[in-house]
């Protein structure tokens, strides 16, 4: 399903975090959202799964405003892999993944055979089947991330939102995650920190700086030294072969002219 964000402005406690951002994600494509910390990536994504309502603008999935849908309809349309489940009362991995079926079922009753098969499938795909009986709180950060992906997969929504999915993951699981996500065939929007993952796996990359879209296009056209310098204030060079490019980063060289720390002022400085 096609996703359109039109002129989306989001305010959090009265302050605009995202300013009139517009972007289109074609059905079945994978779009990477990149930008420095605090640039508004997560906030923009949160409008998609309705954790926040835009102050202005619309969020359309398949031409329908997600904020006009019922909560359950929206959850059947957009699934999200959240950063970390916060549970004071712990669930098992299997129970947590089963929650992905909640939008499809009434709030009571037993789990259907279908649900169990879908959950089983999602867990096997992500490789957390052997963790099924473990309590979520006892897992490592990376394992927890994968369980959250399994839950999002079990939700079987046509649009998948990933908020920094590669956090805590070792390199193998980072690549595996992106491969799984690519292979789903659903529309994917992912906030990514790793620009090389964006370069390697995304159909398009959108750069967000201070809540404004700076660049939008195919990865090799967007992830240039100029754009990266403007967005992240680092030097970037493209290495590797043409068909398998890799970005290397270095701190900006003109950063040596840092201001000296100011001396502590004490009352001894007072001169009559």
């Amino acid at each position: 399903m096609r996703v359109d964000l039109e002129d989306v402005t989001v305010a959090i406690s009265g302050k605009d975090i995202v300013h009139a951002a517009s972007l289109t994600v074609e059905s079945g494509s994978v779009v990477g959202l990149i930008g420095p910390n605090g640039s508004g990536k997560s906030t923009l994504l949160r409008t998609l799964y309705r954790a926040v309502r835009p102050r202005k603008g619309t969020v359309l999935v398949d031409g329908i405003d997600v904020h006009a849908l019922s909560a359950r309809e929206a959850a059947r349309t957009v699934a999200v892999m959240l950063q970390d489940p916060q549970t004071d009362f712990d669930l098992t991995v299997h129970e947590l993944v089963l929650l992905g079926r909640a939008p499809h079922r009434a709030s009571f009753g037993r789990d259907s055979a279908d649900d169990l098969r879908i959950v089983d499938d999602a867990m096997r795909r992500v490789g957390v089947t052997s963790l099924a009986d473990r309590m979520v709180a006892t897992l490592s950060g990376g394992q927890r991330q994968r369980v959250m992906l399994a839950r999002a997969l079990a939700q079987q929504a046509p649009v998948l939102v990933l908020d920094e999915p590669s956090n805590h993951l070792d390199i193998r699981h980072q690549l595996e995650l992106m491969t799984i996500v690519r292979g789903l065939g659903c529309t994917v929007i992912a906030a990514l920190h790793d620009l090389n993952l964006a370069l390697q796996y995304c159909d398009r990359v959108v750069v967000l700086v201070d809540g404004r879209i700076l660049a939008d296009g195919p990865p090799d056209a967007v992830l240039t030294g100029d754009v990266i310098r403007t967005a992240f204030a680092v030097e970037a060079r493209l290495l590797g072969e043409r068909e398998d490019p890799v970005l290397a980063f270095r701190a900006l060289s003109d950063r040596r002219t840092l201001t000296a720390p100011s001396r502590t002022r004490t009352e001894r400085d007072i001169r009559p």
Partner: protein
Amino acid sequence: MSSTSLTAVRPGRRLERRTAAICTVLAIALVALTVLSCAVGVVAVTPVQAAQTIIGHLLPGMPWMSDGSLTPLQDQAVWHFRLPRALLAGFAGAGLALAGALMQVTVRNPLAEPYILGVSSGASVGAVAVIVWGSAAVGGLSLNIAAFIGAVLACACVAVMAQKDGALSPTRMILAGVALGTLFSAITSYLTISTDAQNVVGVLFFLLGSVSAATMSSLIGPAIALACGVIVASFLARSLNALMTGDESATSLGVNPTRLRALLLILASLLTGTVVSVAGGIGFVGLVIPHIARIAVGADHRRMLPLTVLGGAVFLMLADLLARTVAAPTEIPLGILTAFVGAPFFLWLMRRNGADRAGFGR
């Protein structure tokens, strides 16, 4: 990745079976305790006679009701004193435990209990006002009604204070509840200290909780609230599981956290208010029974809620039976007994390995 299996993995099945087994045992215990409670007291009644009396009142035309095998005194003791009391203990235990479980997930805090939102301190103000000033001074309200109004008002105050920008935040709910609870307690304390000495015992009895004043009509409120609570909660079980994983996560699963929280708040205050207004501030049940249920069958509400309701009822009926018998003919207030029996049991349970599975190791 693991090998393909034809059957879906089903780790929950073992716990489901355990839930069914424990619930069956608790249901049998509930019936046994009801009969036993009706057979214990000053007027000698055998358990068989107690059962006969109860059945005889429920079903017409039982031979033993008219053949003289039961004296009118026995009939009176069982039907008008012991049965309402046992049932009130059951309803109160079930209601408070359910309210506790709902509050714990509402504010996502293991320390939450039915009274955390100031419901009992609100009820106390109402009840103590009637005890101290007399019913006429507060518009002719009975103690029970005044207590219920106090409970509902306290809860409404907390909801108003915790609500901001259309959202009910758990932290604000807890803090507003604690702050308002302290305020109401201060009012109760002032009323208590400034009244005649003879009233103090009555106040204390209410604050500690007791089911000794139970009549058949006093059961109506808690019974209706419990029925509503059980039905609504069972329909909400999956949404409660979703809420447990955080607001943002719940939203992404199609659950509106604020709307659900508001509903839970109403449900919990109704359950607590109706119980407190007739049985006073019985502590401990609402905090501990939900945790025991989680230790036994895990945190999934579809399993832990039935256990919580039945477990709460059994626990309080047992506590009341002990309250009447251990120091007979003197009666120990129920609140004291629940803590005396419950605290050591819970501490023992908490230190076992099974508790770590329920998240106690963190």
